């Protein structure tokens, strides 16, 4: 286990934000060949990997190179399958549904820890977003503070006078132009003010603060919607589509907010894909980094039309 002294947070006064230093991560495994993949099963006669079994379904383990570590948070790796060449989109539906239960179990268990204020489940897919291992996996960070984005979402609740995602679903359903996919429990759309060309948000229809609050059928339908979207992404340019997948849920403590944060939040999953065409990336450049204002090259309504067609092709 890593030396906790290598992990530290500093507060950047000008932006009013925490910066996490985890300098041991500089040495983490970087794009190994498939023969040296640490997330593949350990096969007889071969060197051990992170997972000491010849086959498995889903595993979660403490990150060998954590950005956060007890007693101030945690960092976990969630491996979706022992198939090196699979992806979230290609998982069997039963496996994707099981993954929702794994996420739920981790949210409940990590959220109960006194040192964790926010449980953040995410996936980085593709070298374009900085992935260092190709084997299909996601991560979970247990933040020892409430990060800025969930804090902004709580501020949106206050600004709109209630649950902001509930309001936004109603607006998107009424407008209809940016809708991508719906089932009985989940609505998927390109948001009205999308930052990324093919950004998509996946929201529970009913007000569910977290995975803990979902019915089993809702978890199944959440997996269905996520797979529909990610298959559509891969069909869009007929290539593996890079993205950041971010699961937003209620904070697990009331630290730093004036309200009981656990009462607030609306489970949704946001996708930030960096591609704006099949071979052009959107970069965070001067305006985005220096002024904090996204300049988009595409209209959300036009992107949604293309993505709807791709979802139909990807089914």
């Amino acid at each position, binding site marked *: 286990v890593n030396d906790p002294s290598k992990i530290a947070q500093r507060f950047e006064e000008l932006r009013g934000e925490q910066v996490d230093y985890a300098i041991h991560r500089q040495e983490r495994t970087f794009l190994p060949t498939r023969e040296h993949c640490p997330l593949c099963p350990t096969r007889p006669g071969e060197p051990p990997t992170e997972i000491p079994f010849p086959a498995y379904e889903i595993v979660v383990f403490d990150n060998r190179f954590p950005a956060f570590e007890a007693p101030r948070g945690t960092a976990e790796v969630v491996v979706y399958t022992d198939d090196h060449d699979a992806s979230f989109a290609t998982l*069997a539906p*039963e496996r994707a549904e*099981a993954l929702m239960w*794994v996420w*739920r179990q981790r949210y409940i268990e990590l959220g109960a820890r006194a040192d964790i204020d926010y449980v953040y489940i995410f996936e980085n897919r593709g070298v374009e977003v900085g992935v260092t291992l190709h084997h299909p996996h996601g991560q979970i960070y247990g933040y020892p503070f409430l990060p800025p984005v969930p804090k902004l979402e709580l501020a949106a609740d206050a600004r709109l006078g209630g649950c902001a995602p509930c309001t936004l679903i109603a607006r998107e359903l009424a407008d209809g132009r940016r809708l991508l996919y719906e089932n009985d429990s989940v609505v998927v759309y390109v948001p009205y003010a999308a930052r990324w060309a093919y950004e998509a948000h996946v929201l529970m229809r009913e007000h569910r603060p977290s995975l803990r609050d979902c019915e089993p059928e809702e978890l199944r339908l959440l997996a269905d919607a996520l797979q529909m979207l990610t298959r559509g992404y891969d069909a869009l340019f007929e290539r593996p589509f890079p993205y950041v997948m971010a699961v937003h849920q209620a904070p697990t403590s009331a630290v730093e907010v004036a309200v009981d944060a656990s009462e607030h939040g609306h489970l949704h999953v946001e996708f930030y894909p960096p591609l704006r065409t099949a071979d052009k990336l959107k970069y965070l450049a001067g305006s985005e980094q220096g002024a904090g204002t996204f300049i988009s090259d595409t209209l959300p309504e036009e992107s949604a039309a293309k993505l709807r067609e791709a979802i139909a092709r990807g089914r």
Partner: protein
Amino acid sequence: MAGKPAEPSTCGPVTITRLVKDDGRALIVYALKTDGRPK
């Protein structure tokens, strides 16, 4: 692995088995229940 795995528990369609790696890190194995559901 260090020590014996804890007794399995369940969560929805998965069985949970907890282990500890030799370096002290936790490893949790989730297996789909084989109660007639397809894997």
